[in-house]
């Protein structure tokens, strides 16, 4: 998820990671206090506007949501089938029955709840990917440092990410070398597949070990562990936009809470 960063210069990109996380939490709170799908839809639209503002590629949204489609359908089905006892009035009466003889009735309240659940998931998925898409990996690491996570940990994360392209290149070289010796990698069947991939995996592991050896030497050569910490190159800092955004988020959450609990809106029984 870290490497999904979308290098752009939008308002959200410029915000501090902490502001973005507060915003994310605000959206989660709002999404969970309202039960009415219309209110949740409003929140989802807000998130949609944010996604639009960072020019999030539609393909990305599509890739995120398609695997969730079966989940959405199941949620609708199960909550729709929720029997009347949870709901009152029109919400509790069955609209129609799935099985003859008044079995498995689908209620209006159940369907509405299902809609709310689906919209909540949508909101969450999009909101969280907005955070990762607008935040460079460095900021996450700074955050870890701020949280007093040991610097070895953030070093492991950066190094792992740095070596993804390297290992990928190695993997391709190894596959080519084994194919040239007649390796058949396209064969069907799980066990055969595993067996066929041994000639790829073994050199991969051996090469990784050799590389890790050099890596550990190179780390020491460059003073890793000279002191108990290291210099952070970039400090997280709030700008006035961060403060303004945080105030707005807090206002929205408070008014949301007032709307829900003070005025008792956005809820149904």
């Amino acid at each position, binding site marked *: 998820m870290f490497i999904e960063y979308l290098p752009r210069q939008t308002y959200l990109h410029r915000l501090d990671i902490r502001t973005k996380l507060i915003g994310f939490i605000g959206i989660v709170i709002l999404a969970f206090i309202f039960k009415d799908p219309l209110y949740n839809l409003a929140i989802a639209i807000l998130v949609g506007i944010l996604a639009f503002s960072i020019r999030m590629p539609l393909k990305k949204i599509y890739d995120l949501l398609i695997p969730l489609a079966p989940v959405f359908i199941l949620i609708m089905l199960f909550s729709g089938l929720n029997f009347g006892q949870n709901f009152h009035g029109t919400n509790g009466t069955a609209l129609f029955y799935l099985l003859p003889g008044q079995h498995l009735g689908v209620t209006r309240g159940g369907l509405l709840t299902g809609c709310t659940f689906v919209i909540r998931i949508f909101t969450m998925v999009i909101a969280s990917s907005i955070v990762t898409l607008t935040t460079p990996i460095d900021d996450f690491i700074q955050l870890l440092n701020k949280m007093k996570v040991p610097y070895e940990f953030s070093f492991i994360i950066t190094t792992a990410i*740095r070596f993804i392209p390297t290992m990928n290149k190695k993997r391709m070289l*190894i596959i080519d070398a084994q*194919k*040239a010796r*007649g390796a058949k990698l396209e064969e069907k069947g799980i066990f055969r597949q595993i067996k066929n991939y041994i000639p790829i995996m073994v050199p991969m592991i*051996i090469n990784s070990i050799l590389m890790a050896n050099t890596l550990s030497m190179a780390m020491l050569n*460059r003073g890793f562990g*000279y*002191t108990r910490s290291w*210099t952070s190159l970039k400090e997280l800092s709030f700008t006035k936009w961060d403060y303004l955004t945080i105030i707005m988020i807090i206002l929205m959450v408070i008014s949301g809470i007032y709307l829900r609990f003070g005025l008792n809106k956005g809820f149904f029984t």
Partner: protein
Amino acid sequence: MNKAIELEDVSYRYPKARTSNLKNITISIEKGKFVVIMGPTGAGKTTLSLCLNGLIPQLLEGDLTGNITVAGRDLSKYRVQTMSKHIGLVLQDPEAQIFGMTVREDTAFGPRNLSLSVEEIYERVDRALEKVRLKGYEDRNTSELSGGEKQRLAIAGVLAMQPEVLVLDEPSSELDPEGRAEIYKTIDELRLEKDLTILAVEHYSEEVIARANEVVVLNQGEIAWRGEPEKLFRNIPLLYRLGIKPLPVSLVGWDLYQKGWITSDEIPLDVPTAEKMIRNLLIKHGNRQLESCSKRSGIKLQEKKSQPLLQVTNLKYRYNSGQTALRSINLTVQKGEFIALIGQNGAGKTTLAKHLNGLLKPTEGDVVIDGINTKESDTSQLSRVVGYVFQNPDHQIFSVSVEKELEYGLKNAGFEGAEIKQRIDEALKITGLEKYRNVHPFSLGKGERQVIAVTSILALKPKILVVDEPTTGLDWAGINKMMSLIKKLHENGTTIIMISHDMDIVAKHARRVIVMKDGGILLDGETREVFSNFEALQQAAILPPQIVRLTKGLEDLGFQENLLDESEFTAALLRKLEDVQCL
């Protein structure tokens, strides 16, 4: 204090090793010098460099005895991390020494560990990048750098620690000539800094001679020779004994010295000096008309009417990204040829070679091998006709014994039982690996692993053998062994297509040379013919071998035809001097 490095009776044995890897090394190196360590693989060069900053014995254990003092500090009293401020060690593989995602971030890694202030870190980063000529690359992604750039970045990474001593372990052995030139340009600039002492491990003789203040030759863990590079490279028998590749021009010089034409001090070490020396010699002793009697000329490629073994027609290849990698390649290869494929990195050599066994399929055009169109076949079928040996043997070795390693390809090709055994026996016999049949491949050296890779392909008895830089990273003995193996296979009737950056090898072995540039074939012809076309070679950024350059320089003195190697040249020269008849 003017000693940068002092070793006193240092011996070291790796854990589990039977004999010592370093034996009683005593050496002291003055501040500001550039010293080169040479010697065959396994001589202890890398081991020695790892001792210099304490990685041995702090990270790699084992028995270390003797005293080591670097930059005035007794190594037994300091941690590697502390020494990293005084001695910078750059290891062989640049890839595994890069930690950052951008050039700036990576260079900052060392200073950050020292907990310096952000301003000072950036100042050091700027200075280090400037020294390796990577200024302006700060925000580049490290995974997109070329090999030479990566190696320079690795050097910048240790320079940012501002050490007094810089140790480079084979900084250029995995690089192409262009990358190597980059590295040595950087080293040249670093040498100008008075207080930086540089110690480099190097295989390539040509780079060492003009630069090193001193050469230390290691052999089996001992100092076998030390002194000025000129003395070493003029003493051909000594070089042979130490396993170091002599320069072709000095081989010519050695022969002249043996015949009494010049003194030993006159043995040339580069092309311009050689040219001047020979010019003087010929002017003094007369210049007889040279009649052609070269043995290898006249072998014209046989124009067979029969079907060619390999036919490439209008081959075009584009990457998925749409970038063109090969444009209109036409190529015909007859049975029994020995072809060298040369050109800069990125010229398309490997891309073309991968079309020959179907690893890549043409975007347009056809590749027909032994009557099979690669479009209608897959790599596993083609592997019986075309053997492809990749550059790094470690990318294919996965079995617990050499025998099992050979079995893999044979089983894939559908051979069974007795046939497999017989083919393994045969292949092991050709390559001389019989004694290693049941040995774990990774317990052998790099050179031997390279031979295993070739053997595993050989067992399939391919009609065409494609070898991708078979000599990269090998020492002189390894190179000779590999080339005599390839020569033997060629003599047994295998068609050889070799990708190489080593022009001496190309000139010596290939019968036909194909020069590639920007995804196309720039030149294709007999070796002699191709190497005489200096203009085209220059376009492809290829430096012809020393002897070819020397012959070209002496054209006006009657060296008309192109002479490819030192023995041809010496013969021609002696005929001019002594009026020796052609054999």
